[in-house]
């Protein structure tokens, strides 16, 4: 009996040993969440090893799973991550918590630096230090069904006002007019809703750029925007639109259940991809509608950073340099559905241009236009944003589904913001 126990314990401990000793000298661990670029990068890990002799264990995990893991890895300073996927929306929080390592000098030394688009690169500058290097900038675009608009004899709506009137004309039981993300979350409805909000002049804070961080979401402008957003989804959206996330929007567009979708470029690329969607050839792309305050496409920048607890920062920096290089990016742009790269020269590669023109002739230009229009702090770049975005998203979703009135929702959102910021 005792011997049996001892054997079992020994066997169990033995399992632990290999995993405990993975940190070899020339080896780095990269953790990213699943998107075309990261999937592509994972497949190229062999190239990196061949070039540098450094083995890169690239781990691509689900987005929901990613956030918990990263948070805890950093909290525990486990040092098990050498390069980390750094969404711009998180970087402020991570820097505030001292989880990232400043890499200004390392980035300055990179030859590729001058090729990286300035906007996304600057998004990672906080307190004068560079904290991560961007590899992609996703933006928001609108897709529309050309055939439906033609049949109804209407033009592509340029403003949200137009959208409301067009939606009223084309909406029917068979095909709903529009779908947008609705589930609560800073990366879900709060990636899409600010496109409407900012078009109407709504804002999160009194004066973000000027440094006045008094919550100002409870404004007439935001209220108007919220009413538009709600009217579109509740009256002209598909059934169950109040609980849609990108997956449902994507599926609805690909199945021809909606005429308009407002989505991130990653999803838009799938909706217009003939290999994935039967309605791709009937689908057009446009900039998100404008409002009294102009047009404000969403923007989401993703990059690579080095955790403060990383054991081999030099190796990490070499990996990042390789990962954002024109060659690597071009390879991924060609192998995956990855068009929102931030390393400039990739866009001049004829093969890349050809590939994305085939997907959709307007795709690359539209994307570039949207990126030019997007403001860097589309979602505020603050350490507390994840919490703020979660809270606002919950209130917006509550109004959308009729749990509270729009007025109450914005009031609630503002109160929640104050609570989180300790005001």
């Amino acid at each position, binding site marked *: 009996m005792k011997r049996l*126990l001892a054997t079992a314990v020994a066997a169990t401990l033995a399992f632990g040993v290999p995993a405990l000793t993975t940190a070899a000298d020339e080896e780095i661990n990269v953790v990213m969440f699943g998107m075309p670029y990261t999937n592509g990068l994972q497949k190229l890990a062999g190239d990196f090893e061949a070039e540098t002799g450094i083995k890169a264990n690239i781990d691509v995990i689900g987005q*929901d799973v990613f*956030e*918990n893991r990263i*948070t805890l890895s950093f*909290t525990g300073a486990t040092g098990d991550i050498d390069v980390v996927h750094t969404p711009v929306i998180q970087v402020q*929080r991570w820097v*505030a*918590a001292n989880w990232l390592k400043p890499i200004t000098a390392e980035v300055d030394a990179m030859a590729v630096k001058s090729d990286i688009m300035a906007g996304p690169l600057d998004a990672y500058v906080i307190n004068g230090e560079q904290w991560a290097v961007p590899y992609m900038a996703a933006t928001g675009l609108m897709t529309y069904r050309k055939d439906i608009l033609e049949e109804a004899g209407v033009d592509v709506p340029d403003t949200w006002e137009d959208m409301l009137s067009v939606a009223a004309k084309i909406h029917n039981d068979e095909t709903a007019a529009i779908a947008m993300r609705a*589930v*609560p*979350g800073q990366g*879900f409805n709060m990636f899409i809703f600010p496109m409407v909000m900012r078009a109407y002049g709504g804002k999160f804070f009194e004066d973000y750029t000027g440094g006045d961080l008094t919550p100002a979401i409870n404004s007439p402008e935001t209220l108007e925007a919220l009413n538009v957003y709600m009217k579109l989804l509740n009256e002209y959206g*598909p*059934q*169950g*639109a*109040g*609980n*849609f*996330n990108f997956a*449902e929007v994507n*599926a*609805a567009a690909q*199945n021809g*259940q909606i005429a308009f979708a407002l989505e991130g470029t990653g999803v838009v690329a799938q909706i217009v991809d003939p290999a994935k969607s039967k309605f791709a050839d009937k689908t057009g792309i446009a900039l998100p509608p404008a409002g009294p305050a102009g047009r404000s496409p969403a923007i989401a920048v993703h990059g690579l950073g080095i955790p403060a607890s990383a054991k081999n920062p030099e190796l990490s920096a070499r990996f990042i340099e390789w990962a954002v290089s024109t060659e690597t990016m071009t390879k991924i742009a060609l192998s995956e559905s990855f068009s929102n790269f931030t390393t400039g020269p990739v866009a001049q590669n004829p093969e890349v241009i050809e590939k994305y023109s085939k997907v959709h002739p307007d795709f690359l230009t539209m994307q570039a236009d949207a990126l030019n229009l997007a403001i860097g702090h589309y979602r505020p770049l603050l*350490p*507390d944003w*994840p*919490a703020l975005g*979660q809270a606002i998203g*919950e*209130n917006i*979703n*509550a*109004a*959308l*589904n*009729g*749990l*509270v009135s729009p007025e109450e929702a914005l009031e609630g959102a503002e109160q929640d913001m104050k609570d*989180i910021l300790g005001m």
Partner: protein
Amino acid sequence: MSSNSKQRAGATYELERGYRRMIVPAIIAVAIFAIVPLAGMLALSFSDYHLIRGSNGEFGLRNFIKLVNDKRLVNSIYVMSVLSLFGVAAQVIIGTAVAVGLHKIVGRWRLGRVLFLVPYAVPHVAVALIWLSLFTPTLSPINAFFDLFGITVPSFLTSQNGAMFAIIVADTWTNFPFTMLIILAALQGISPDLDEAAALDGASRVKTFIFITLPLLLPALLMVTLFRFIDSLKHFPMIFVMTKGGPGRSTQATNFYAYVQTFQNSNVAYGAAIAVLLFLMAALISFYVAKLNQRISS
């Protein structure tokens, strides 16, 4: 008992010492793997630890005072109660119905038993994803099927009651087989003589079930209800996958709310305080379950 006899190693001393030695490893395992993290949770709940802001090293009741005035906590307890009460009721009723059906109507239909067990074997994350697609009108084959006849199945996930209903359905689907197993077991423990006696007494089958079988099943029903209730307080994957707590905050059950505070709001200390509250509730309920178990088994 004299102090002398207490020190004496009696005839059963060796035996009892043997028994104690058999329990010790389990106690050590429980202490290390459960008590230590629990103590950590308690310590965190009194602290001011925040993932981003760190800690000023202050300890106190602040988090618990905040709990008292937290409306979201009240909402979360309401959601948890609805999910648990209705979910467990549905599981017990359906599980019992299936068990009785398998026992009485279809007899020894082994394959049937296995078919009804399938949902129990599907991991919760997968259960949640499958039901999410079934509850999304644009994806669901159920909606598509009824559309053929011009019937529109309502969408559930966009209202509080509907979303709670959807979560309850998914939870019931994967957990009713547990009730079924236990009730089936209890049914097999009931002597068929009793049914026959009741039939001779002129009772109809329904009456026999209500007046003879059901009372005999009562201890089993009570145990299974409480066991399922215990587990249901830990609701997480269904909410996490199906509604993300929405619409609004209307399906943030307490366990999920603790998760939101801990991970989304980085407020680890407050999340721990909510967990402590949940733990105290669990302690209270499990105390009564243990008492009940003691009564049933003696």
